[in-house]
């Protein structure tokens, strides 16, 4: 099945050099181990001629190598794949595979040489001779030692022979053949091949004798080193040589070539041998050979097509797998991204909640401090108000009494009476202050209590008339409001008594609006200038009402009485 003996040699050299290289690289990575394992398997299958499996594992190894970006390994695997494709006649496929390897080539080395050589072989087999020569030349450039150059040079010569440029071929082959290095034992097969090709070139070029001499020399050398594969080629060349001189001899060589090729399952060589046999033989034998030729030719085309398809499929599957992997990876990445997003969202939500709680706590704290401050301020105001009252109403009188006691003879009955009178006056005032600031019963007696308090302002010259106080459902009104209302009414009454000189006061409780409790105070006193309201300590009442969310409106003018409207929300 092998296409040409030249490749196998090349592959052999190549394999050895590569295997050496692989050993040098320390493998720790899991992926690299995988790649190596695939490669070993592939090489094993290649040695046992299981091309499909070998191709499959080289491809796997390549995929693994791609994952770790080991360009050397990728190139090595691709070259092996290309070689397998060429062995099985898939030249277009091999060119494709080789092209795939090109981006990984960084410098001129054994790999680039191999690639160029394989390009050359593919082109040669596809009858693109000029390109083949070009690639072989490139391969030569990439080769460093002389022995390695021999392969491509020989190949160029073969191309020239195919192109019937025999002189050029002879020229090249002569230069190689004369190299002393070829006399080494290990390179004798090389020398035999070169001699054989040189002889064939001479023969084709017309130098028949010279050609026969060299071909025989090569044939002898091959027999000597038992290069069976090379012997087929020599046999074919000699068969061709004798075709026109001695048909029997030609047949003999062709038959020998056919037998050896059959042993090595080398179909191309068998076909060539058969074609000689067909040409040389008599009619009866001719038919037999022709039948065989057709059968072989058909089956090889079938097998090769089959291989082509299989290789393409392996590559395609691998690519598909790769794409699927990529899609999976993408999905995984997307999932991860989503998870991360959710995580971030959760974190954000968490932080937001905490912030909210903190803000809430701060707000609560702020307002509690504010209310506390307000309360402290309110009680402070009350304290200062009482202190002022004590100072204004009591301190003077007490001082006056002290002075009186110091200066007047207390023994005298008249003075004593006077002193007692003054002290009694002070006592009454103290009681008054106490009463004004006393605790307030906010229980069931509240309404009665308010009425009684208001009633204390009744006297012979003044009537305080109360309307509908019992209609208010006092048990539903909270204590703070009741206390505040009580104090405000008390203050209104005190002010009235002090300043208004009113003879009539009406205090009306209005419950007609379910949302509000309205209390109106009206007197027929002398009133005052509206702008002076604040001075009269009415600000204090306003403050009190505001703290329980109520409103208080004062309305007054000189000689028009005094009107107050208090609204408390229920």
């Amino acid at each position, binding site marked *: 099945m092998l296409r040409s003996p030249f490749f196998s040699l090349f592959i052999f050299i190549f394999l050895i050099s590569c295997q050496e290289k692989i050993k040098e690289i320390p493998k720790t990575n899991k992926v690299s181990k995988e790649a190596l394992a695939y490669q070993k398997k592939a090489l094993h299958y290649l040695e046992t001629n299981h091309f499909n499996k070998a191709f499959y594992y080289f491809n796997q190894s390549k995929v693994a190598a791609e994952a770790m970006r080991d360009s050397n390994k990728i190139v090595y695997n691709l070259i092996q794949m290309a070689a397998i494709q060429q062995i099985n006649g898939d030249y277009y496929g091999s060119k494709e595979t080789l092209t795939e390897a090109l981006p990984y080539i960084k410098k001129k080395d054994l790999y680039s040489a191999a690639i160029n050589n394989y390009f050359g072989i593919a082109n040669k087999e596809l009858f693109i001779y000029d390109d083949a020569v070009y690639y072989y030349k490139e391969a030569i450039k990439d080769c460093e030692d002389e022995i390695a150059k021999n392969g491509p040079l020989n190949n160029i010569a073969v191309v020239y022979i195919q192109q019937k440029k025999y002189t050029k071929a002879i020229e090249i082959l002569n230069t190689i053949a004369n190299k002393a290095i070829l006399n080494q034992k290990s390179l004798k097969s090389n020398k035999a091949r070169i001699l054989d090709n040189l002889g064939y070139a001479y023969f084709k070029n017309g130098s028949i004798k010279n050609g026969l001499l060299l071909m025989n020399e090569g044939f002898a050398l091959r027999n000597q080193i038992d290069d069976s594969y090379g012997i087929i080629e020599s046999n074919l060349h000699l068969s061709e040589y004798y075709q026109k001189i001695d048909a029997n001899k030609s047949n003999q060589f062709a038959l020998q070539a056919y037998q050896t090729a059959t042993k090595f399952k080398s179909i191309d060589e068998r076909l060539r041998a058969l074609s000689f046999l067909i040409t040389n033989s008599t009619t009866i034998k001719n038919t037999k050979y022709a039948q065989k030729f057709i059968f072989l030719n058909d089956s090889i085309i079938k097998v090769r097509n089959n291989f082509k398809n299989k290789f393409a499929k392996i590559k395609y599957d691998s690519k598909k797998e790769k794409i699927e992997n990529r899609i999976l990876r993408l999905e995984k990445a997307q999932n991860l991204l989503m998870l991360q997003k959710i995580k971030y969202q959760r974190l954000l939500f968490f932080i937001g909640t905490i912030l909210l709680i903190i803000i809430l706590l701060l707000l609560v704290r702020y307002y509690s401090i504010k209310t506390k401050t307000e309360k402290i301020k309110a009680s402070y105001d009350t304290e200062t108000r009482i202190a002022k009252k004590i100072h204004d109403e009591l301190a003077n009188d007490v001082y006056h009494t002290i002075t009186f006691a110091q200066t007047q003879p207390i023994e005298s009955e008249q003075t004593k009476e006077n002193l*007692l009178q003054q*002290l*009694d006056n002070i*006592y*009454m005032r103290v*009681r008054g202050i*106490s*009463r004004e600031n*006393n605790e307030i*019963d906010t229980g069931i*007696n509240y309404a*009665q*209590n308010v*009425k*009684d*308090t*208001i*009633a*204390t302002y*009744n006297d012979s010259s003044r*009537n*305080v*008339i*109360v*309307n*509908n*106080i019992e209609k208010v459902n006092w048990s539903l009104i909270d204590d703070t409001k009741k206390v505040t209302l009580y104090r405000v009414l008390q203050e209104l009454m005190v002010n009235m008594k002090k300043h208004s000189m009113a*003879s*009539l006061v*009406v205090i*009306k409780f209005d419950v007609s609006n379910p949302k509000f409790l309205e209390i*109106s105070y*009206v*007197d*027929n006193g002398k009133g005052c200038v509206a702008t002076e309201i604040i001075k009269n300590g009415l600000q204090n009442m306003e403050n009190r009402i505001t703290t329980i969310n109520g409103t208080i409106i004062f309305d007054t003018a000189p000689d028009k*009485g005094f*009107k107050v409207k208090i609204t408390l929300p229920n």
Partner: protein
Amino acid sequence: MFKKVIVVEDFDSINLGIAQALQDLNISNFDHSKYCDDAFLKIRKAILDNEPYDLLISDLSFKKDHRDVTIESGDHLIQKVRFLQPNIKIIAYSVEEKNYRIKTLFQDSDINAYILKGRNSIEELKKAIHLLTTSDNKYISPEIAFVLKEKNNYEIDDFDILILKHLSTGTPQDEMGKIFKDLGIKPNSKSTLEKRISRLKDFFKANNTTHLIAIVIDMGVI
């Protein structure tokens, strides 16, 4: 005259005054306590000894000090004593002048006298003790005597407002009874209405009905 008296008062000076008054009345058998709890114990002991007190004179408010007390106020003590010994005479003696508190004492604890501490309170105390010895009458200081009289409040209700409204729209007094009757409003008798109107005139210091209407409109009553 009372044989055995207990005085509950936390100020020594006042105690002295009361002691003086009692001595003036030839009452020599008297005890005093500065704490309600002590007083209550003494009263209970006296009952057990079969030598009960026949008069309790108690202040209402006591200053708080280091001692924990169960009976904090005179009101409470009086209430308990009245329950324990219903026949004892009780005089409340305090600066307290809140109407409802005084009323509560008279109504609920059935105290016999309420004396407002003042310039003349010692004299009043003597007077009260005399009164209580000779009769079952109650005594109350004149300054706060109004507390027990209900007449003191000038309260008007919706019915008064209704009358005033009708008067203001020119309804004659005579017809008002009939209108009320038609509307099903009670009371609607002529005499009741007359009484009401004259009471309103009193309240609003009006000389006549026209004056009354002028005043109530002026003051925003209707």
